[in-house]
């Protein structure tokens, strides 16, 4: 039993972190709010193999596992990289051009009544998942209204009053895998968001002075930061376990491990986002400081691939079975 990252995994995380620092610095990321997804940078990300990480080498992928994907997505979340990252990875090998970034794919669960489709305005293809399978629709064919003010300025959403059926591209089992893997990847993004919000808050707490000393010296702030990193560390254990378990290197069923990770992720990321705002005081509520971006992204991810509160209800059933 070895829970530590391998040297290769550490190197992978560092590589992605360096890539994000160089090509997804916060100015470039924020520019996409106005300019839309930067397809050049998206392509660069694809080129490094981020989306094809778990695709077999024979299929043109990198041939790594979901544990590695978890480590990579943690870094993407930490850097607030925008765009349908999860869908791109899920669609690699399934939809032409997803892996290399030339086709931007997004996804939405089928629902009764109107639906909110993330990234519709940036995408070429929308994959709808339901109990019967996976269905593909050209994004342009989705009639709807792009929200004037999406909750997360970097996650555009389009309101669709009735989703079309679409062309089937996967059966029920494929849809299950889609949701399971998507849930793990989203939890990994949340982990990165929680960690990024914590780093931002801790950095500010060390620098900002009030009453003649850094605010991080005050227990009210110090203990809040301690609670933040506590959530991050517990979540990290759950997310890495989920990744390893999807690779068949875990103890539990993948369904359980992924549920656990997503449940923890949904509360930890939002709580760290809120705490990051609070540690920054008034500045934390400004558009200029990134604190709100972490929080908003955390909220958005909670709504994708299984809300924490619904997954918790499902998980409980296992306690009495």
């Amino acid at each position, binding site marked *: 039993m070895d829970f530590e990252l391998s040297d290769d995994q550490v190197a992978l995380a560092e590589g992605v972190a360096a890539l994000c620092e160089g090509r997804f610095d916060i100015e470039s990321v924020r520019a996409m709010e106005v300019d839309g997804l930067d397809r050049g940078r998206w392509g660069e990300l694809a080129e490094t193999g981020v989306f094809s990480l778990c695709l077999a080498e024979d299929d043109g992928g990198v041939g790594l596992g979901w544990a590695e994907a978890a480590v990579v997505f943690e870094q993407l979340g930490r850097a607030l990289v925008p765009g349908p990252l999860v869908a791109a990875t899920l669609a690699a090998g399934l939809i032409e051009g997803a892996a290399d970034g030339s086709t931007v794919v997004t996804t939405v669960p089928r629902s009764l009544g109107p639906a909110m489709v993330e990234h519709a305005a940036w995408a070429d293809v929308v994959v709808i998942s339901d109990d019967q399978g996976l269905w593909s629709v050209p994004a342009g064919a989705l009639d709807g209204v792009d*929200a004037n*003010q999406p909750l997360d300025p970097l996650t555009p959403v389009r309101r669709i009053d009735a989703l079309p059926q679409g062309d089937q591209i996967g059966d029920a089992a494929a849809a299950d895998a889609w949701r399971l893997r998507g849930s793990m990847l989203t939890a990994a993004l949340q982990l990165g968001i929680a960690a990024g919000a914590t780093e931002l808050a801790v950095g500010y707490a060390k620098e900002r002075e009030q009453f003649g000393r850094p605010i991080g010296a005050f227990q009210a702030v110090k203990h809040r930061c301690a609670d933040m990193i506590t959530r991050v560390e517990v979540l990290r254990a759950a997310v890495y376990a989920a990744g390893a378990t999807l690779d068949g290197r875990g103890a539990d069923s993948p369904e359980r491990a992924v549920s656990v990770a997503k449940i923890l992720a949904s509360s930890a990321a939002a709580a760290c986002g809120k705490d990051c705002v609070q540690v920054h005081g*008034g500045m934390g509520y*400004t558009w200029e400081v990134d604190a709100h971006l972490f929080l908003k992204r955390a909220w958005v991810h909670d709504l994708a691939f299984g809300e924490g509160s619904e997954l918790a209800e499902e998980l409980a059933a296992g306690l009495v079975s």
Partner: protein
Amino acid sequence: MDLRYTDEEEHFRDELRTWLSGVLPDVPPLPEDHTDLVARRAYDTDWQRMLYEAGYAGIHWPAEFGGRGSTPTEHLIFLEETERAGAPYVGVNFVGQLHAGPTLIAEASDAQRSTHLAPILKGEHVWCQGFSEPGSGSDLASLSTRAIDDGDDYVVTGQKIWTSFAQVADYCELLVRTDADAPKHKGITWVIMPMDAPGIEIRPIDTALGAGEFAEMFLDEVRIPKSNRVGDENDGWRVTNVTFAFERGTAFISEVISSQRLLADLAAVATRVTRRSGTAWDDAGIRRELGRLDAELDALWSLTKRNVSQAQRTGMVGPGGSVFKLAYADVRKRMADLAEQLLGRAGLAIGDTLDLSDLDHVGERLYTLTLTIAAGTSEIQRNIVGERLLGLPRGDR
């Protein structure tokens, strides 16, 4: 102890209701573009003028200064009824009505009063507040905007932040440092800054909700006549705090009433949200949380009345305001969490809840972030409650 209103109080309420029901149908809705502060100013000052003409302006100001001189309880009724009726909020008149005006009443010279008080009541002058600075935050008294003594004038240079409606204000109540060597509370002076003075640059501050009322002010050698000073030089800290004596526990009345409306709407949303087998309302956990929040808002409404009663009897409220604010922030944040749970993916955009509600629960969720920050962070409030109410020793701040 009798929570019923007296005949006089009920009479006041009836008169107010009658007036509101007469005028409100002709009051237009708020300007749609909430970033258009010029329109907002016009809207809010129009309403202020209507209040003035009906005798409701300066409801808590003494009659000798043009106010109505109402009791705290009447003040409570006024705020309750206007909010319930959906009347405009105090808006751009906030600083003039509630802060600068009362300070002038208490501390200004007769000349200053006669220049400024009536125009505030009539909606002619809009005031803003230049207290906070980027470097001072919770430690307001550490402010560093410098006033150099230059004959009949102060020459002021520095930066202010969180100045609501600076873009459209006529005057600013400004705190400046007139003695850099004195202990931090002892070198501050309170001055009236005309917003058309040269050297003032204003930049809007966008918040997590986008563009709005906030601004930064950059002051570069702004010349302010010493005759605009209120109170003595270096006595500005005391002058600033004198307005607290006007506090009557009424600060959050509109908020409590509107929170109750929001909560009732959340309950209605719960009945509309479909879940696997039924609606969110079928979920006992959600009903329980709705009920708890309803109880807590009700208790906060009682606490408000208690604070107002105390003000009516003793002329002031103690740290009851801090207690209220701590509890209120907690309730509103839990309401926001519940809204998130109820809306699900309908919460992905501000202003479109997929027809589940007409209210902007997503915007409200973001707004609740300010409740533990603005007007004294919860950390500072807890220090106040711990030290002033409980007598615990001061430590690190």
